[in-house]
Structures are given as structure tokens and as C-alpha cells.
């Protein structure tokens, strides 16, 4: 059965399902008619850049149909829909084994069609040491972004996705395999789109995988940003941390749902999830629901937590005693809150560049 037929054969997902509890499929479907697979979907423009200088040899982007692997754990609705809609809009980012450019590579995805979709497959070679920032920008009503792939054995990768779309809806589905002894920092920075639904899944299927999932989410006005993160420990001696910071202003709503699955046999797994929400306005809402499914007894630890609250009054007072007005202090505290996860995502060069992007958004919001 092809992916279109598969999608059309499925029932609309029920809201009782963890993934669809807060933002139903109908709301993030490009037309709202869930029995429809739209035609004439546009392809965004993809290009590789560097913060400074030329793109080094050893990394390339290849356009063409890429076999989509690694989606078995993804939600059937989104995986079949995304496969169907990205058939003509597929790229592979290929990184040579041992590639270590010493600088950050930017994958720019620019959209200008009302409805666009893209599949990007990451193929990170063995022992590569690589920072990739995927910058999603432009103006559209709907963008579907499917990211699949794997980080090669012994590689060290920062894989950061930045959403600065001018409104519209972003549906993002990630399915990334982390191979043996591979270290991954998977970052999400989101300050664009009116509506975002992300289903981000990471699987450590071999020993020694080390994953840090980091989020810096800034919502304002009437934005609705819903991120679901699943981390699968399917092998012994695997490590994961999730640290997700959302700053919510205006009438916006953010949702963070986590699912940590430790399979039987994953001895020595060490996993923790923490969602933190900073409520900037009285009408903003933030929900965080971390969940655990641990099927192995001999683990180092598995924990989760969540915290929500307004700007800390004691921190405000402290900055006030240093001459910073209440507005200045609030702005600094919000930036600091987002920066504390941003700074863990990669090198100084990348961090400075990312801070620049978020600073513009903070200024634009007038926080």
C-alpha cells in the first residue's frame, strides 16, 4: 500500500491519544479536511551556508527521492501523511565520515508557497564532529517538515532546528536514530509560526548513545506551540536528558509532552526530562506532561519533572538593585531563561548566532 492509500485508510486519531491530546490532527492538517491530501504542494528552497566563509567539503545536500526509513515508532497518521506529501520534495544532507569542519553549517529552508512540504534525511558519517542548524523561514500558510536519518557511530552532532516562520502552521515530524557511542545535542528553537505541532522522536538502539534534547521556545500573541518529544532507550548504557524551556506571553499557549521509554534489556540507562515554563503574561498558558515507561529494572535513573511560574520576584529585585528597570530586568530574565538551554546546544560561534536570532524576536515582541 502506498503512503497516500495508507493515510486514507486510517481513522482520524482520537484526542485521547497522548500525541493528539492538546492539538488535534484536524487543527494542524493543511486544509482542515482530514480526508484530504492536498495536491500542488510547493517545495521550499534548501541551501547550505556557513555563519562565516564557504561551506566546507565533506557536507552536501542532495535533491531527490530518499527512501524514508526510521519511522516505525512515529504516529501512523503523520508518518503516512508526511510520506505522501513529501514524495516530490525530498533531500539528503550527507556528512562524510570523520568530517570535522570546526564551524557551524546552516541548512536554510525558505518557503514561499502557501502550502509547502519537505523531507530532509540526515546521514551523519561515522566519527563526524558536526554542527548543523536548520533554519526554517519565510511566509506560508502551512509547512510540513519531515526529518529522518541517523547519526553515525561515534559521531558528535549538534542538530538544531530554528523556526522563525512568519506565521502559518508548522507540522514537524522527526525520527532520528542515534547509533552506537554517538553523542547528539538535539535543539529546537521556536519563535515563529502561529501554530506548531512537533512530533520529535529519538531512538538509541545501540549501546553508548548519548542524547541531550534542548528546547528554547518563545510564544507570544495568539500562538499555539505544541511539542511532543519521545526518547527511546532500546539498548544498554544509553543516556538522555531533556531540558525544555518555554517562555509564554500574550494569549499564547505552549504544550510540551514528553515520553521516555526504556525497553527491557536497556541496563544502565540513565534518563531524565525537565520541562520549565515561564509565564510572561497573565493570559498565557503552558502545559507540560512528561511521561515514563520503564521496562528495565537495572537503570541508573529515570526521572521527570515540570515547573511553571511567572518571572521570579527575587531575581527581579536583584536586577533592580543593579539599576535595571522592571521592564529591562524582565526582558533580561526571559532572555536568560531561554539562553540557559540555548547555550547548551553547541559551540560559542553557533550560540552567538542563535542569540542574535532570538534577540531580534525578543525586541520585536517588545518584552
Amino acid at each position, binding site marked *: 500500500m502506498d503512503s497516500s492509500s495508507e493515510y486514507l485508510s486510517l481513522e482520524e486519531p482520537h484526542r485521547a491519544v497522548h500525541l493528539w491530546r492538546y492539538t488535534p490532527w484536524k487543527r494542524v492538517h493543511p486544509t482542515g479536511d482530514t480526508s484530504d491530501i492536498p495536491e500542488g504542494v510547493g517545495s521550499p528552497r534548501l541551501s547550505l551556508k556557513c555563519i562565516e566563509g564557504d561551506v566546507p567539503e565533506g557536507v552536501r545536500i542532495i535533491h531527490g527521492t530518499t527512501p524514508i526509513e526510521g519511522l516505525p515508532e512515529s504516529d501512523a497518521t503523520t508518518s503516512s501523511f508526511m510520506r505522501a506529501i513529501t514524495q516530490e520534495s525530498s533531500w539528503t544532507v550527507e556528512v562524510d565520515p570523520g568530517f570535522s569542519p570546526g564551524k557551524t553549517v546552516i541548512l536554510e529552508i525558505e518557503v514561499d508557497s502557501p502550502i509547502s512540504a519537505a523531507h530532509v534525511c540526515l546521514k551523519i558519517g561515522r566519527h563526524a564532529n558536526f554542527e548543523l542548524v536548520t533554519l526554517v523561514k519565510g511566509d506560508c500558510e502551512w509547512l510540513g517538515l519531515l526529518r529522518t536519518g541517523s547519526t553515525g557511530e561515534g559521531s558528535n552532532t549538534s542538530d538544531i532546528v530554528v523556526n522563525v516562520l512568519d506565521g502559518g502552521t508548522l507540522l514537524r515530524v522527526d525520527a532520528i536514530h542515534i547509533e552506537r557511542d554517538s553523542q547528539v545535542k538535539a535543539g529546537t528553537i521556536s519563535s515563529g509560526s502561529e501554530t506548531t505541532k512537533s512530533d520529535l522522536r529519538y531512538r538509541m538502539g545501540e549501546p553508548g548513545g548519548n542524547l541531550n534534547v534542548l528546547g528554547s521556545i518563545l510564544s507570544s500573541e495568539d500562538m499555539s506551540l505544541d511539542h511532543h518529544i519521545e526518547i527511546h532507550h532500546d539498548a544498554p548504557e544509553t543516556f538522555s536528558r531533556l531540558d525544555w524551556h518555554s517562555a509564554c506571553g500574550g494569549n499564547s499557549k505552549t504544550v510540551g509532552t514528553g515520553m521516555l521509554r526504556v525497553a527491557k534489556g536497556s541496563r544502565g540507562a540513565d534518563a531524565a526530562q525537565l520541562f520549565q515554563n515561564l509565564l510572561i503574561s497573565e493570559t498565557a498558558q503552558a502545559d507540560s506532561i512528561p511521561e515514563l515507561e520503564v521496562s528495565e529494572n537495572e537503570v541508573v535513573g529515570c526521572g521527570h519533572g515540570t515547573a511553571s511560574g511567572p518571572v*521570579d*520576584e*527575587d*531575581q527581579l*529585585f*536583584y*536586577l*533592580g*538593585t*543593579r*539599576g*535595571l*528597570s*522592571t521592564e*529591562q*530586568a524582565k526582558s*533580561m*530574565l526571559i*532572555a*536568560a*531563561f*531561554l*539562553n*540557559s538551554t*540555548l*547555550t547548551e546546544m553547541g559551540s560559542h560561534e553557533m550560540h552567538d548566532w542563535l542569540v542574535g536570532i532570538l534577540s531580534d524576536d525578543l525586541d520585536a515582541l517588545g518584552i
Partner: protein
Amino acid sequence: MSGEKPILAISNLHVGIEGTEILKGIDITIPSGEIHAIMGRNGSGKTTAANVIMGHPSYDIEDGDVQLSGESILDLEPWERSRSGVFLSFQYPQAVPGLQVGNFLRKSVSSVRGDDAAKGAAFREDLKNAMSKLNIPSSFLSRYVNDGFSGGEKKRFEILQMMLLKPRLAVLDETDSGLDIDGIRTVAEGINEVVRGTENGALIITHYSRILEHVQPDRIHVMIGGKIVASGGPGLASLLEENGYDWLEERVAEGDVFE
């Protein structure tokens, strides 16, 4: 007294929090160029006095006034007091993960002393000198404010801020606690640099006389139960160090308040 008006004048200050009176009518006057100290046991109201001078919003001012160079500051927000020249070194400084020390210092100096003071070679030189005096390494600048700092690092960072902000009135709340002997000497040198030979002033809040040996305050006030029960010269600190507070509390219980 080198100025016409005292740098700090606290008069008949009554302060409460959630209906409980903590400060029960205190009077302290610090002339320009002088360093005073408040000593007292835990819970006597010393930190409340420091927070009220700085404008902490949790406290209710029930009566009295706090003046900086003859002007009441009670209606000013904390940041306005800071820009007027008041500085508070905290007993427990707040950690702000994600806020880099270097950026924070530049922005606070800009807010208090103006944009020009936070720009260019002059600021960098100022910063370098202050950090050198306090034995703070340059790597400190890329850390986050008080995040993961040891007790001693926090106190040195408070003094670094004081040296850069150049306040007219520095209030130091238990800055000596958690510091070793060398740390106390270093911090005391910082306080002396900001006040001695200037028209500024300082109020040191402490349990112990150790820091006072290095700072040599002009006057010491003893606070018990939200009141100043004794004021005197530096000898008072030695007396308290030798005899503790019990004898003083007994005298106060008998109705003595002495100068």
C-alpha cells in the same frame, strides 16, 4: 563630616511584614565619608533594614523615613534607588542561569552610571583593575550570574559590582559570611576603596568583628529585637566579640538603651 547632609539618614523607621512589626523605630545617621556597622544576632532585623533601604517590595513602611543626601527615597523603586547611588550587597545573591556575568555588568553599569561608563577601553580597564584587586579570573565573565558560584565567589562578585557601580551608599549585608581570612581582607579593601577618602558612605551588616578589623568603621550600632540598643566607636565590636550579646540583652531588658 565632609558634606552638609548625611549620606544616609534613617529616622524613626517602623517596618512590618504581613502584619508583624520587625523594625521598631530605628535611627541611624551616616555622614559622608563614614562607614558604619550594624551588629546583632540572627533575627534582630539587620537584613530587613538593608532590604528596606534598597526598597524591597515585601515590606510595609509603617512610619519614619530613609533619606539619601537629604532626599527621601521611600517612594523610589529599587532600580531608581540604585540609579540614585544606593547599592546592596546581598547575603544570599540570586543566581540567574543564562545571564552572562560580562553582559550583566555592562548593562548594570550602563543603567547606573550611563552608557559612556559602560563603553570602550575605560570600562574594560575599570573592570580589569577591579577583577585583579579581587583576584577574580577573566573566565568569570563568561559564567552565569551566581550560577554554581561558591560562597566566596558570590561575595567577591557582589564587591566587584560595587566597585564598578561606584555607589554613594553601599549597604553590605553579611558580606563577610562564608569568606576565609584572605577573602575578608580582599573584600574589606574593596569597601575601603569605594568609601575612604570620598564623600560616599557604607553600612556594613555583620555578626562578627573580623571584617571590622580591616574596615575600621567609624561607628557601630547594635540591633536587638528591631531596635538600635547601643551605638559606639570601634571598641564596641571588640566588647561584643569578647562578651557576646547576652550582657547587652540583659541591660536592654532592664530598660537601658545607651549611647
